[in-house]
Structures are given as structure tokens and as C-alpha cells.
């Protein structure tokens, strides 16, 4: 479980967030493309995972709340374009800390995948 740390408290605090919960990493990946509202994040997560991960509203906003408390996300004050979307929606984006934590988790998962490939995980069961 990620520990609550103030935003921008240095590289050591980035490591203390790892490993990220799966829901948090999905949200970070969804927001890596830019700010989004809640439903757009849910849709994006479902698309990115090819329908495997389907977040409910409680899971999504529970994670968003925790990530905001931890300084990984922030709510966007200004709307991207109120004429294009419902201006009552709330938009979220990654903070600088959120981006660093996301990158660190990406590297961690990448190393894990490399290890799995080197050890030919799953090939013996085909």
C-alpha cells in the first residue's frame, strides 16, 4: 500500500509509493495522455486493459481521493472547453510527483516483465 507523502518530497518518497496498487497505476496510465474526467478515466482503463479491468465508480473515486491525498493527482480548476463537455464534470490530471511515481512503477513492471521473459514464464505450460 502506498504511503501518504507530501507532494514533491524527493526521489526517496517516489520509491516509497511502490509497488502501486493496480487501480492507481491504471488511473496514472489513463491520465498520462492528459487531463480527463472520471467517466473518461473509467472508459480509458477498460479500453487499455481490453475489457479485463472494469472499475466501478466507488473504486475509481476512492482511488482518486487517495491519490489526491497522496499528491499524485490534482483536480483541474479550469475546464478544457466547456462548450465541448459538461462543465459540471470535474477533471483530474497527474502532478509532477504522480508522473515520477508512474514512471518508477513503469520501470519496476518493465524489469519484472523482462525477468519473466528471461525465465520463459508460461512456456512450459503451453
Amino acid at each position, binding site marked *: 500500500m502506498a504511503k501518504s507523502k507530501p507532494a514533491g518530497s524527493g526521489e526517496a518518497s517516489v520509491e516509497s509509493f511502490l509497488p502501486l496498487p493496480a487501480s492507481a497505476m491504471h488511473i496514472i496510465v489513463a491520465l498520462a495522455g492528459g487531463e480527463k474526467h*472520471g*467517466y473518461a478515466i*473509467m*472508459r480509458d482503463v477498460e479500453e487499455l486493459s481490453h475489457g479485463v479491468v*472494469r472499475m*466501478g*465508480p*466507488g*473504486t*475509481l*473515486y*476512492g482511488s*482518486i*481521493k487517495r491519490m489526491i491525498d497522496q499528491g499524485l493527482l490534482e483536480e483541474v480548476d479550469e475546464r478544457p472547453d466547456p462548450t465541448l463537455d459538461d462543465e*459540471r*464534470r*470535474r477533471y483530474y490530471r497527474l502532478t509532477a510527483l504522480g508522473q515520477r511515481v508512474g514512471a518508477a512503477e513503469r520501470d519496476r513492471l518493465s524489469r519484472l516483465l523482462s525477468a519473466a521473459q528471461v525465465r520463459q514464464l508460461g512456456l512450459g505450460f503451453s
Partner: protein
Amino acid sequence: MSRLYRAALLAYPRSFRRAYGPELIGAARDLRRHGGVSRTRLALRLAFDIVCTAPRMRVEAAVRNARVAGVVSLATIAIVAVAVGSSVLLVLIGSVVGLLALLGRRHDRPIVTNPEETARWYRWLMAAAVAFAVGFLALLTSDGDELSSTAWTIWMLAWGSALVLALFALVLGTSHAIHRRRAGL
């Protein structure tokens, strides 16, 4: 559907509902309108979502409230100590004098002299345990950080009562032990 989901959101802590209630309802509505999900599947998905997430948030809120309670208790003690320092000093002096007088009593003389009364000391302890349990339940169900809420009031009264009742049980229990010793039991 919307009304039912709105009612089900009561499972979440109040602070979370206040901050994200409209978003939760909006997301559920979007799932129905744009998600291509049938009403039944959506209802099951939302129910499962609440069951999986609400208890954790309740526990987190209770832990947070316990921390707040600790800080508030310490702050209250500090404020009382500073604001009425002289009174506290007088009470302390009075307590020390009273304690010394109590210690000066003969050891074979119980504080409460009615043996029938002291034999029921455990009832006070049980009452204290019940009051403590009520306070604990109130702490678990306290919703958000509002110290003025009913749950907080019940918690403070219950634990305050538990403390007093436990002290009664201690006094009666001590007296009962002395009674038994005197009776040679």
C-alpha cells in the same frame, strides 16, 4: 435506479459522499447511457463495487477519526491545563491531601463499608465494558471528521461514562477484597 444507487451510497462515509457523491451518480448515469450496459448488469456491477469499496473506506475513516480523537483529546487537555491552570493546581493539591488521608486509613478498613454493595462490584465493571463497547461502535460508525456529529457525542459520553464506571468498580472491588480478608475468606 438512480434513487436506489443514491440510497446505496449511504454505505460510504459522509465526507466521501460530500466530496464525490455527484461524481459517483454521474459516472453511474454515464455507464447506463453510454456504456452499453444493461440495467441488471449495471445494478450488479454497482452493488459489487459498493460492497468491495465501502467497508475499506469506513475503516479508513474510523482510523482517521481515532487519530483526530487523540489529537483533540490532547489539545483539550492542554487548553484546560493552560486556561484553568490555577484551578487544576488547587484540585491537584486537594487530591494529594485526599490521597494522603486515604493512605493514612487502616488497611483493614474498606472505603465502602456495605459488604452487599461491594460484592456487586463486577456489575459496575460490566457496565463500564458495555459503555466502552457502545463508544467503540459509535467511533466505527462516526461519519467524517465533524466533531459535532451525533456519533462523536455518543463516543465521548460513552467513554467518559466507561471511565467513571470502571473507577467505581475499582473502588468497590478493593473494598470487597478487604471485606473478604477481614472475613477470613
